[in-house]
């Protein structure tokens, strides 16, 4: 054991001879807001929209077409995606050039930062209370997809909207199985660091488009 560790722990332990957390009063349970699934969807959409994300409510069969439309509206003709999306987006291949992520980010950072205008990812689930989308990036859908390109399109299943973060963690037993990186996204990147004036696209995506699938 290195000496800094030993010293710090020794100092802390010396000072806590008899103290125990058993003496603390019970922690009150915060009453969760009760919402029906429909209300959850409504709240999720409202909060994200308030936070400057664009939410499109679509049917599963409409994913590819919606992606094409929203890219064309922005004059974008290429899209990066995880390997799992290639089949689903095949029908737009002609007009939009689809690229999957590199074998590795190493050596490809320059093109990722400078030549990828848009990316699409799926999501694990979502949270109504805060209007958040939950991503568990993995080998097929790397973390920088939802971070580096200026436009992030994310597909969210309406049936996967949880009431709040606490409920989600418990129901999905996160404490037993966290991935390399889990991330909650609640809008496009933003900052109010200059004179409290909100500006979007600080470092991450300037635009977040949510395709909410019924």
């Amino acid at each position, binding site marked *: 054991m290195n000496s800094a560790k030993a010293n*710090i722990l020794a100092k802390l332990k010396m000072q806590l001879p008899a103290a125990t957390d058993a003496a603390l009063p019970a922690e009150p349970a915060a009453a969760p807001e009760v919402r029906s699934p429909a209300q959850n969807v409504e709240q999720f959409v409202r909060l994200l929209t308030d936070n400057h994300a664009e939410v499109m409510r679509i049917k599963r069969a409409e994913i590819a077409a919606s992606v094409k439309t929203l890219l064309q509206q922005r004059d974008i003709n290429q899209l990066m995606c995880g390997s799992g999306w290639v089949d689903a987006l095949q029908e737009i291949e002609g007009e939009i050039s689809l690229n999957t992520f590199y074998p590795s980010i190493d050596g490809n950072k320059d093109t990722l930062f400078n030549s990828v205008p848009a990316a699409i990812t799926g999501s694990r689930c979502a949270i109504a209370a805060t209007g958040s989308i939950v991503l568990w990036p993995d080998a097929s859908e790397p973390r920088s997809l939802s971070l580096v390109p200026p436009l992030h399109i994310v597909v969210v299943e309406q049936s996967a909207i949880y009431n709040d973060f606490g409920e989600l*963690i418990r129901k999905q037993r996160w404490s037993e199985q966290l991935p390399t990186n889990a991330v909650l996204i609640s809008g496009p990147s933003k900052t109010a660091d200059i004179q409290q004036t909100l*500006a979007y696209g600080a470092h991450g995506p300037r635009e977040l488009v949510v395709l909410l699938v019924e």
Partner: protein
Amino acid sequence: MNTRANTIATDGSKYEASARQFRGNVARDLANPQLRENFRGAMDYLTDKRRQAFPSEDELETLRRKCQLIKQRCLLKLPELLEQLESKLEQNGIQVHWAETTAEANTIIAELIQRKNGTKVVKGKSMVSEETALNDHLQAQGIECLETDMGEYIVQMAGEHPSHIIMPAIHQNKSQVADLFAHNIPGFDYTTDVDTLIRTGRQALRDKFCHADVGVTGVNFAVAETGTLCLVENEGNGRMVSTVPEMHIAITGIEKVVELLDDVPPLLSLLTRSATGQIISTYFNMITHPRREGEKDGPKEVHLVLLDNGRSQAFADEELRQTLQCIRCGACMNHCPVYTRIGGHAYGTVYPGPIGKIVSPHMLGLEATKDLPTASSLCGACGEVCPVKIPIPKILLRLRKESVKAKGEPLVVKGQGCNRKPLEAGIWKLWSRLNTSPVIYAIAMWLASRGRWLTPAKAGAWTRVRTLPKPARRPLRELVKQREQRREGQ
């Protein structure tokens, strides 16, 4: 604005020196109307946002109580939680380093970077790295260390330090930022349009993320149960820094560990709502492993540096220990009438405002910071808004007491007794003697009332802004007695 930077020396003890200059700093910054206007505007904005984020008083109170108890539980178990955190992190492949002092932390980080032959470091927001003055340390070794949070980027460019723990550049307005960019960014087309200013920063920094060797961040919560480092942010720079470079080094104070993953949602909710009035930040980033076999991005190495820097001293005393409950939301400074007027730099410490006044004495010693606990009207606003219910006003009083403690009493705070003056101590001794003996008290009151014409017009600093009270013509006891006699006579 550069005069401010100049008052802060660049050696390791820089904050000790600048904290000593508190009184001078206050006079300087109070005389700057632009600065006061910037702070007033920002504080009004933040207090208003916070108010809107807590529509239900009941819900707020329940949540505060819950989070207070969560933090107290975690602190009571701190030694075992730190060990659990370390073993979980190491199981996950994240290496843990311990540092008692800021110098140790800096050495650890510099060695990690040098081992990778790194020369370019990008940094996410980390107040703990401000504590250690990491930027200065790395720069001295020829390592570029660039702040990437927009506010921090501005502050670093100006050669300053953050004036607020959440909004570091709050002391500057947009025209000051525009001037700064015009001086420092080649090709910048002068404008005060905030969108353009941010886009300018974004452009400059994207290139830096792309080519950095190492990313450094702070940590908002370190979860012992799972070995997870949680980062709260809006800009995405924290994610960049912890995703793109091959090595990620996180640094945090030992008090940031929480026991359970379940503890995180309530703390997160209170943190963002208290800080900026957001129900959640744009990103909540949970890091549990370095890049795994087969994954295509993410850092290959992740390190956590756990820093003590005086925290274990605060830990010793039950009352002072509450200082460590802090989740660094900044609400106490936003609501502080003193902070709003003097601004964040006057304190001369890394952490300004009410939390700075109670935590800095542990980091720098009470001797260097003895003026800070006295710079409070004890209005109680900080304690009322603190999401984890730290009784800041009480702790301020306690530190005032510690600062005038007699020699030879058991050591609680490094530098205790530093403000003790023999004359003052003598006067108080006399005072207590006088007030505990009825006979002496009566005589003294009789003398004071008869000798009231002897009261001087001036009494040092006290009468600079006040008039000295004169004793009454007759002491209360005499008046009451007279009244009783009159009644009886009637």
